[in-house]
């Protein structure tokens, strides 16, 4: 890699169709082989990147969303807010307004339409986020409070702290809203897949998502073995570049299972992940 100071470096998002495929393994190792990188753990339902980085915490805050609160003394039961809410988060029985916080999308519309000014916004914590440092990696991580139904506001907050340097986004599994939000700022998506029929099916799902979003992408094959690899066949059939292969390997599994970053522990793995990062950088510059 050339030392291109001042240039804006790319943001990569690492995705897979299901959990346990190797997103965090690839993300933490790619961030670790870079000269400097920001790692963002967007899997706010079960963040685990910091188990590897064990960063020195530099900043933390609660993530809040705005929720409406009603003053019963001012509400005259006019029904306007109930009719306005596109998510049906409000109900009115007589003159008593009920607010369903878990259905509310914090749009603020009910407050805007209320002629009595009976509704106000209050902050409600939905999770927390932190920024820390581990060597040359700045690690940004968030977690959602138990019982909350959407991690999107937390991911939005995490992405606000992204810098212009090389960034690795560790996306949540699957192809939900959380994933869509996580890849919003990505210049390039790296899809990681297992060598099974199930793995190829999950790869196809997430590949469809990144195609719909118009994101350029490539694949890293994980846990590769001798013989047939349905995920590899999928890539060949659909002309998707394969930028790396991580072999099914006991040593790598052992390091990873005790929270060690293989690229920091072992020269061989440092080379494996450096090669993937270089190929990814070549792809993004194409």
């Amino acid at each position, binding site marked *: 890699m050339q030392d291109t100071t001042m240039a804006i470096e790319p943001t990569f998002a690492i995705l897979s169709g299901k959990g346990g495929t190797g997103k965090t393994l690839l993300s933490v190792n790619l961030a670790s082989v870079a000269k400097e990188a920001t790692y963002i753990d967007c899997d706010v339902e079960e963040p685990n990147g910091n188990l590897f980085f064990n960063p020195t915490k530099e900043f933390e805050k609660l993530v809040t969303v705005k929720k409406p609160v009603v003053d019963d003394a001012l509400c005259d039961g006019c*029904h306007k807010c*109930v009719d306005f809410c596109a998510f*049906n*988060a409000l*109900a009115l029985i007589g003159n*008593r307004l009920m607010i369903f916080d878990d259905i509310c999308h914090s749009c603020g519309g009910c407050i805007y339409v209320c002629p009595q000014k009976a509704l106000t916004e209050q902050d409600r914590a939905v999770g927390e986020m932190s920024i820390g440092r581990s060597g040359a990696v700045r690690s940004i991580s968030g977690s959602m409070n138990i019982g909350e139904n959407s991690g999107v506001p937390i991911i939005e907050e995490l992405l606000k702290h992204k810098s212009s340097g090389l960034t690795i986004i560790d996306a949540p599994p699957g192809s939900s*809203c959380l994933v869509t939000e996580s890849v919003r700022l990505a210049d390039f998506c790296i899809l990681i897949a297992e060598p099974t029929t199930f793995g190829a099916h999950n790869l196809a799902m997430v590949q469809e998502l990144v195609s719909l979003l118009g994101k350029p992408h490539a694949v890293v094959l994980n846990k590769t073995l001798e013989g047939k690899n349905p995920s590899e066949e999928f890539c060949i059939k659909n002309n998707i570049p394969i930028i790396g292969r991580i072999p099914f390997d006991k040593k790598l599994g052992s390091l990873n299972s005790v929270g060690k970053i293989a690229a920091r522990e072992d020269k061989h793995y440092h080379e494996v992940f450096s090669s993937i990062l270089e190929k990814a950088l070549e792809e993004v510059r194409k």
Partner: protein
Amino acid sequence: MIIAIPSDKESLDSAVCVSFGRAPFYCLYNTETEQSTFLVNSAADSPGGAGIKAAQLLVDNKVSILVTIRCGENAAKVLQPAKIELFKALNLSVADSISAHVQNKLEPLKEVHAGYHNGH
């Protein structure tokens, strides 16, 4: 007193709809006039919160009794403070369900389910 019954079709011989919040129609039966009318459920195709909006529709139409196969917890949170009583529908047509309720043959609906919200 008005009885509401979720119905699949806009007719008294229709089956009772298995869903409360996403039923296409509600049959509203007025026990005093013995007249029934059908209300289009504007909540049926809501992306979310259908039970809340459907319950609001019944509140706004002064319903006192709901005869239904099942009911979600958010809908119940609106129906209960509005003092709308819930009764368990049997495998009967809308017309026969009205008769069964008038003859006190229906049991109160005891369980509400957690809903079938598919997240996001």
